[in-house]
């Protein structure tokens, strides 16, 4: 990148903030890259000949006479089969000691797929986790985050899901990943013998936060190469998107933009949508599925980050600790897969959706009973049965350590219905009761 024929160099900065610098320059293009004192930066604003750049690694130590070299192009990534099995930093440079990747140089953060050229997602992604497969079935081409408090084992669950999913490539975009978590992912992928189908772009907490802004675009540019050019099924893991959004707010704040809710930039929705909407089922069989992590502050989903995310993604998987069963469960109320009806009863057994709904409804009744219990009221026979059911349902269905086939999940649910309830109490269609009821 550094040996471009046409390079303009400037040495007089007009302003410096923690994340941006401004200088007078001519003939530069919007979103063009530059190096400032050797650090990578990108143009975010021009006003007359005053140009503002965001410096990805922070502006610490940049003097007002720093050398600014414009490179004449937006961020790019070289794409080819050589990406497989490799680990990169936010700029797409190898961090695994291996050689540079040879391949076609492509702009990252490129255009969107024509919605008319998309196909309806229709392939089931089984994960073995009943809280997902039974209640919130995943479909290829979907985009869905885990909503979890920082103390939940979301990275572990995500790694499990990725390694069990039947996909050709797994692309990990790590933003603000602790070094321990980075090594954890590396170890999990190695231990599963899956390294050849992994591509990782990693920004750890040791690296500057603004660098994170490049990670999703890099990961998705690689994903688009495998899905569009090679017709592969690609699963992209993005963790943690909350830290990505925090980086956005840093930059917008330094640019004196008026913040909207929770001091996030007003464009947060569009910024996140540009990433998540890269999830796609393509006409020629390739697909990009995005599973992300959005960490929450004490389960608060009304904060601008999870809130905007929820409006963009096709559902969310909400992890929480359950005191009844002592397990981490996929919360059936707060979790949702919007695409589940595209595969339920079609790619799975005919009773799937009714069993799912009945299971959750009865679990909701158990929560009401629990409230009554907490308020010191007598419980009815039905309440007591609900409570017993809820405990077993949480342990055998909702817990994230369950790993069984979907038919087994359905059979387990019928077993629980038969054990604790009468057919009428489940509200399931009579034809299905006749066929599957286990007295």
């Amino acid at each position: 990148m550094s040996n471009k024929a046409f390079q303009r160099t400037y040495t007089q900065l007009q302003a410096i903030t923690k994340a941006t610098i401004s200088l007078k320059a001519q003939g530069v293009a919007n979103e063009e890259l530059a190096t400032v004192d050797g650090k990578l930066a990108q143009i975010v604003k021009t006003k007359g000949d005053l140009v503002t750049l965001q410096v990805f690694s922070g502006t610490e130590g940049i003097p007002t006479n720093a050398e600014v070299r414009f490179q004449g192009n937006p961020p790019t990534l070289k794409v080819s089969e050589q990406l497989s099995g490799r680990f990169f930093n936010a700029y797409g440079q190898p961090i695994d000691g291996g050689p540079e990747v040879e391949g076609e140089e492509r702009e990252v953060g490129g255009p969107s797929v024509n919605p008319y050229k998309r196909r309806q997602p229709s392939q089931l992604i089984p994960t073995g986790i009943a809280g997902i497969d039974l209640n919130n079935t995943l479909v290829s081409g979907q985009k869905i985050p885990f909503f979890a408090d920082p103390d939940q084992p979301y990275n572990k669950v995500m790694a499990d899901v990725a390694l069990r999913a039947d996909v050709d490539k797994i692309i990990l975009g790590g933003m603000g990943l602790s070094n321990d978590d980075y090594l954890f992912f590396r170890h999990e992928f190695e231990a599963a013998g899956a390294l050849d189908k992994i591509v990782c772009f990693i920004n750890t907490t040791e690296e500057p936060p603004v660098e994170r802004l490049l990670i999703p675009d890099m990961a998705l540019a690689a994903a688009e190469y495998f899905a569009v050019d090679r017709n592969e099924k690609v699963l992209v893991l993005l963790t943690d998107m909350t830290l990505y959004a925090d980086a956005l707010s840093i930059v917008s704040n330094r640019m004196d933009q008026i913040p909207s809710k929770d001091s996030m930039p007003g464009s947060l929705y569009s910024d996140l949508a540009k990433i998540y909407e890269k999830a796609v089922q393509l006409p020629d069989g390739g697909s990009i599925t995005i599973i992300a992590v959005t960490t929450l502050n004490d389960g608060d989903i009304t904060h601008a980050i999870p809130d905007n995310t929820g409006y963009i993604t096709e559902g969310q998987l909400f992890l929480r600790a359950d005191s009844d069963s002592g397990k981490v469960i996929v919360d059936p109320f707060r979790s949702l897969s919007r695409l589940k009806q595209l595969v339920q009863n079609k790619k799975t057994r005919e009773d799937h959706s009714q069993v799912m709904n009945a299971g959750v409804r009865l679990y909701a009744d158990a929560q009401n009973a629990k409230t009554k219990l907490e308020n010191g009221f007598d419980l009815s026979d039905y309440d007591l049965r609900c409570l017993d059911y809820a405990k077993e349902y949480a342990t055998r269905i909702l817990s994230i350590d369950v790993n069984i086939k979907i038919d087994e999940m359905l059979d387990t649910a019928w077993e629980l219905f038969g054990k604790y309830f009468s057919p009428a109490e489940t509200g399931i269609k009579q034809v299905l009761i006749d066929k599957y009821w286990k007295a």
Partner: protein
Amino acid sequence: MATKGIVTGIVSNLVTVQVDGPVAENELCFINIAGTDLMAETIKVTGDKASVQVFESTRGLKNGDTVEFLGRMLEATLGPGLLSSVYDGLQNDLTTMEGVFLKRGEYTDPLDHEKLWDYTPLASPGDKVKAADWIGEVKEGWLPHKIMVPFSFKDEYTIKSMVPAGQYNIDTVVAVLTDSEGEDVNVTMTQKWPVKVAVKGYRNKPRPQKIMETGVRVIDSFDPIAEGGTGFIPGPFGCGKTVLQHAIAKQGEADVIVMAACGERANEVVEIFTEFPELIDPHTGRYLMERTTIICNTSNMPVAAREASVYTAMTICEYYRAMGLRCMLLADSTSRWAQALREMSNRMEELPGADAFPVDLSAIISNFYSRAGMVELNNGKTGAVTFIGTVSPAGGNLKEPVTESTKKAARCFYALEQSRADQKRYPAINPIESYSKYLEYPEIIEYLDRKIEKGWVDKVLKAKNYVRRGKEMADQINILGDDGVPMSYHESFWKSELIDFAFLQQDAFDAIDAVTPIERQKYMLELILDICNTKFSFEDYEKCREYFKNMINIMRQMNYSEWQSEKFHSYREQLDQLLSENVK
């Protein structure tokens, strides 16, 4: 001479242009970037500096790049062939674009210029006509598509000549008109209209007279929307906004449906154009896609075109309304449009209003809603645009600027509720908070008396009251405990649960339950009201719960059964049996 300019500043999609001549507010321009023209709209002018919002990515744009102003606002192209189309927010035909990815600066024609249409004249030489008068007709699918005197024609005209019936393409001059000055003007089958200006050309706009059936019980019976009415659906994510909107689009009793996917998920649009060509309109037996136009500016498409998308969609509806058709516009979601306004306002460094939204947000929203309505055309026929918008309130909190502004403008309010969705009580419309102002209109009450039966609205209000009372009783039971309240509290509570489970809740994914014609709604609601009006006797609250649970189960099975089928009647008999066991 067209005004020209050069780029002097860029912040994301807001570009400042130094101009060399006059520019108008909302005037379009093309910004030339390395041989590609990017369309942009003027949103502010200060001295010789115009601020324009670019409808595309500005990556690579440089100061000094040239700009050419077009002397016109953003226009919709109107004519036969709009139905079944899939457009972007600027009305580019997405189906004719090449390649998997959208290319910047690629603009495609909204209408097919080759296709021949069977044209029949509706007027003759010598006739006096004015804007929006019908002068010819073609068949678009099964709909009579009127060819009109263009809306932009201001004068009164005399038809000088008219082509005979025959096959023509849309560019054929079908009539020549002479204006009051004696000048001749040509009329083809297509015309253009600026999207931000409401289409007039009708005699008056009376109050709505009838309701528009949607097949969704909680809407049609509890809070009906009028033909030509307005409504909105706010709700946190995951409460079924989109499922509900799609249900209305599939089942709504309208001739033309325009769906504006504004800043929402692309897969939802994919669902529409995958499923609609296969689905049958329950009212006409034709394919749904034949009456549907999709305008899609999904969340990853350029932000500025989001605003354009809702206006383009409204203009297409108004065009069909002028043909005497009943149109429905569904916009999902108007919050995304408001956010696009906020992004621009922010980049222009305007002083913000609440939550950083522009201060004129409320005025913009109410102005847009006011374009809906029933109209009486110049020839005495009527047409209607019914508008339902969704709102995505931040954090699910309805006390935010977009919801509040919309509440002032829309006549129906369908509040989707998180707790109902958590309990899988779909559609998650809160029956107590939601309202339809149309239930207060004497015209509508009288219409429902005729259409359903005398006193229908009273029955609905009664049912609503049972739900309200049930809610109060539930609160009491929660405070005082099952044993701490009289039996009648339990009975009231379970009566409201019966209304909820057997009537308000509806399975949008069940072939039969998804659509309930008004006749069937009447049957079920009356049946339920009869039960609610009955005084029961129970030994204890356990028995009461069990009894009503049984009843609910039977009535849900009724909802799942074919209307008036043997199965349906056998469940009805079961219900009667159950009722006869316990009546005071």
